[in-house]
């Protein structure tokens, strides 16, 4: 069995705000092994980014409260001091962010920004760090890296900036790469290139990846395991196969239905999940998805536990609906109205 890098146990994150306590993450657990890709999927406000940032300690602040454990190779990252955490950030865990346009400092050269990260963790002279920065840029597919290393971020295109961010995140050879919606701000062809790049580099650097997205289509290729989050909770979790071919949560159906697909009969229009994600200050009673769920019934007044309800072990969900009933109904949502006609 591959080395277990990360073990998150019942992580809860809340923030005190002027309007009340925002329960951003309410109990998420997962493990991550070297070489694996974990996909975390959900809408805005589902808690996926907060989860990712919490792993890096980036949500720490006077208003933030944490419960549970984030065990990285046995050390609880929630408990280590800010100073100690610096040794993990960038070194053991690398992170790339949603918007490459704003995530790089506009006033420093790309190369200097990578060098800065390397020198924060390793005692190497500037020249060594710089040649490593060039090598990294080459690895992430920046053409002519010897010259490009001198460029400023505004001289890079969006896709190239995200590649530079990836180079920076990988500069100290981290065991885990956390990618927080790395493709959202990019156009579709660049998205695919970035996903391929992450997938390839994961093998080159022998690391694990946590890939966060709101678009299940993006991680269809690379994820080994998928967690679907809603209102700070895990509502479905399973292997890629489980989630794509036997999804149990109507919410997951909605996410799948909102992806344009070429291998299905053409729907009139893509599925939309009605309504808005709930406020994290005043959550609805029972199943959190109930107000937006077209299949809700009385039992949904109580929140279902995250349990295994199907044959596949490790495929967990939070839905009271009968499994057979669901299998009959879900294609309507996933493939759109014209599925019946087909």
């Amino acid at each position, binding site marked *: 069995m591959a080395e277990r890098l990360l073990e998150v146990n019942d992580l809860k994150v809340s923030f005190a705000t002027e309007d009340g306590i925002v329960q951003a993450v309410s109990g998420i657990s997962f493990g991550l092994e070297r070489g694996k890709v974990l996909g975390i999927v959900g809408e805005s406000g589902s808690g996926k980014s907060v989860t990712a940032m919490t792993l890096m300690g980036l949500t720490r602040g006077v208003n933030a409260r944490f419960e549970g454990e984030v065990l990285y190779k046995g050390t609880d990252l929630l408990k280590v001091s800010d100073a100690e955490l610096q040794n993990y950030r960038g070194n053991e865990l690398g992170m790339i*962010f949603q*918007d490459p346009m704003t995530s790089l400092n506009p006033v420093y050269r790309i190369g200097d920004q990578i060098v800065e990260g390397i020198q924060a963790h390793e005692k190497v002279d500037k020249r060594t760090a710089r040649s490593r920065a060039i090598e990294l840029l080459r690895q992430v597919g920046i053409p002519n890296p010897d010259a490009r290393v001198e460029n400023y971020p505004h001289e890079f295109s969006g896709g190239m900036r995200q590649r530079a961010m990836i180079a920076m995140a990988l500069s100290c050879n981290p065991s885990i790469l956390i990618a927080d919606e790395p493709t959202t701000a990019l156009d579709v062809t660049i998205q695919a290139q970035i996903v391929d790049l992450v997938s390839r580099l994961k093998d080159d650097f022998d690391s694990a990846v946590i890939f966060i997205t709101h678009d299940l289509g993006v991680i269809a290729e690379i994820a080994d395991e998928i967690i679907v989050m809603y209102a700070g909770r895990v509502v479905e979790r399973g292997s890629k196969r489980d989630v794509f071919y036997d999804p149990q949560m109507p919410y997951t159906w909605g996410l799948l239905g909102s992806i344009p697909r070429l291998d299905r009969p053409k729907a009139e229009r893509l599925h939309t999940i009605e309504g808005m994600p709930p406020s994290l200050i005043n959550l609805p009673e029972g199943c959190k998805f109930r107000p937006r769920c077209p299949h809700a019934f009385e039992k949904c007044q109580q929140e279902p536990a995250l349990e295994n309800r199907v044959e596949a072990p490790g495929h967990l969900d939070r839905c009271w609906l009968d499994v057979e009933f669901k299998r009959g109904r879900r294609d309507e949502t996933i493939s759109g109205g014209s599925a019946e006609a087909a």
Partner: protein
Amino acid sequence: MIPFIIRRLFGMLLVLLAVSFIVYLIFIVIPGGDPAIRIAGRTATAANIVAIKQKLGLDQNFIVQWWDMLKQLFTGQLISYYDGTNVVQQIKAGLPVTFSLAVGAGIIWLGFGILVGTIAAVTAGRTTDRLITAAALIGISMPVAWLGLLFRYFLSGEKGWPALFPDGGYVPLTQNPAQWFYHLLLPWFTLAILFIGFYGRVLRSNVLDTINEDFVRTAKAKGLTPTRILVKHTLRASLIPIVTLFGLDFAAVLGGGAIITETVYSLHGVGWYAAQSIQTQDLPPLMGVTLYGAMFIVVFSLLVDIAYAFLDPRIRLT
């Protein structure tokens, strides 16, 4: 960059011409502006006044008068109506004082402004921040003239307390550096306190905005130390607007803008000269001082633009 600078220099000339014209215009329009009447004195005859007007060229067309005055100014021949001294030489005589005041005060207000602004931002919402904010508001609100008088009254022996500082006056740097410093300490702080409060407030809010930038989060995610993040990423970005402020404020003080401070401490610099000339409604020195000050403003605004291009590589001067 070179074409940019050349174009700007042309623009600056036009600005200076416009400034001088407006000054001249104002002087003609205000009551009691006609220097011939005042020079002739109370018992003058009409013939006296005409003679003076002729001598000073005041009987000519308004535009010609203005142009003659500019020519005299730039050839160093402009003479005060009031006491007949050479304007350019008077301004030159005031330069060491004004420069000493501006450079010292500038260093103090920039340094302390950055210091208190950064401390306030880092401790935002806590007691230190509140104290600094309150102190800054007091500093901004105190009129310079009043503050200068308070300093002199309490610290320079006028109240009868031991005099910690000399009561005004200026000792040239070349003559006695220690005395130069000692004499200028109070004027420097008098002038700087307003700016310290103002710069501190501006920097505090800039830093608090920058802290939430994505690239600062990236810097954290790289595992940099908090000091490095603050200095290299947050402050670096937050200081860019301060450069603009400082360029223009510093230019104004260099250009004789510290009229009140120079007057309160009897520092005979360009600002003091301006104040004297205003009292006597003496047009030639006012024209000289105004153009001298305007020149610093336009030159420094060009320097600020050039500095921007170095501070932010996204800016291209075209």
